[in-house]
């Protein structure tokens, strides 16, 4: 697999780099080239925006049957998280037993390995979350 497809999204994954529409002041993650509310008026008016990385769990699952390459992490917690700024993001919650996670739990971003292209390929890094 080529490396560029991960590389070009590094800022988004490393630092929750999204975008902000300067017309309606809404923040978006992942980054968008056009605001889905302001449409063409927002073209060229989207700014880079880094989310702070704090949020609340809106739902979650504990994965026991992983996709290939995620076996060493099972059981892992995968959650939808409402960021302080308002947008939703999907990510793992690490470093706690599943019994400690609830809808509404406060979380903060941490930096982790997301996946790797086998033992000889590149490693993809990015955001995961931890209970605050």
């Amino acid at each position, binding site marked *: 697999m080529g490396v560029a497809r991960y590389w070009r999204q590094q800022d988004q994954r490393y630092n929750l780099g999204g975008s902000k529409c300067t017309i309606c002041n809404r923040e978006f993650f992942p980054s968008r080239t056009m605001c889905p509310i302001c449409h063409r008026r927002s073209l060229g008016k989207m700014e880079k925006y880094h989310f702070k990385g704090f949020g609340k769990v809106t739902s979650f699952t504990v994965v026991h049957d992983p996709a290939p390459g995620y076996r060493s*992490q099972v059981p892992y917690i995968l959650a939808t998280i409402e960021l302080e700024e308002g947008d939703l993001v999907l990510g793992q919650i690490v470093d706690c037993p599943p019994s400690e996670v609830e809808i509404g739990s406060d979380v903060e971003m941490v930096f982790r390995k997301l996946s790797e292209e086998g033992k000889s390929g590149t490693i993809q890094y990015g955001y995961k979350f931890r209970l605050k």
Partner: protein
Amino acid sequence: MGSGIVSYGVYVPRYRIYPKDIGRIWGQDGAAMGKALNINAKSVPAPDEDAATIAVMAARRTLLRVDVDPQEIGAIFVGSESHPYAVKPTASIVSEAIGAAPHLTAADLEFACKAGTVGMQACLGLINSSNKNIPIDYALAIGSDTSQGAPGNALEYSASAGGVAFLLGHEKVIADIELTMSYTTDTPDFWRREGMKYPSHGERFTGKPAYFKHIQETAEKMMRSMGTGPQDYEYAVFHQPNGKFPITIGKKLGFKMEQIETGLITPYIGNTYSASMMIGLANILDKAKPGDRILAVSYGSGAGSDGFHIVVKDEIERFARERSPLVMEEISHGIPIDYSIYVKFRDKIKMEGE
């Protein structure tokens, strides 16, 4: 104008394994082994942690404590013996992840357990350059490791994971580094060949001619240069491959337990290799007051020591320590795991397709 530590931050993985659980697997009295080594538990990285993720976390926590624009950082050095790539720098990952890229220099360092302190020296050199053509005001030195000991080897009781970052500069310095000196010889007490998963060591050879000699030579040379004696320091911190060696060398050099104990972190989390002495130093800075003097000496097998004479400044009273976890807070959240989870987390199981 002084130069030294502007900020620092630590990160230690949450998982812990205890000596008795390691000993049980290998038919040894693990609890006795732990006692002999003065190691109560060691930190274990989660399967999605490596020296790069740990370095990034430590670096971010360092920057949280000060209002320094990451773009002003002119150099990043990451010392580790467990860089995730053999070729491709950890330092560039850190640079990108903390927003310091692209206008800086960055590199990985390796010198067993002292690669992080070599980074501190390199940073000091850059920020103190009198050459105006080297315009670097801030530099970041990181020690970060997820070290491994071969299953069943004595090293398995101590080799752990953790990271610490020191931001060095001239402004708002919380602790001046007034002197740094090193001592280097070709002493093969511990090594890992290219492509090998686990290191080898010379057992008792790692002690007297290696660890003890290098630290002693460095510390004594430092104190001679500064005209100081052990009584002139509030704190002393040494590399800590176990919880016993640093006490032994400290006492030999004439330090008292109360000067040494604050910097002793290995008893709680094991030997974090490149981060080992530096985490001890971080714990001292968590508690230090203006005017305190610290003697810090690292040791890296192969072999060498770097010494630092540090004086804590008034600025530490205004330093926003509380924005990131203190060392003792950070290491207090242990999640116990047994040996089977440990071997899974540490990639010691041969998986399908391997």
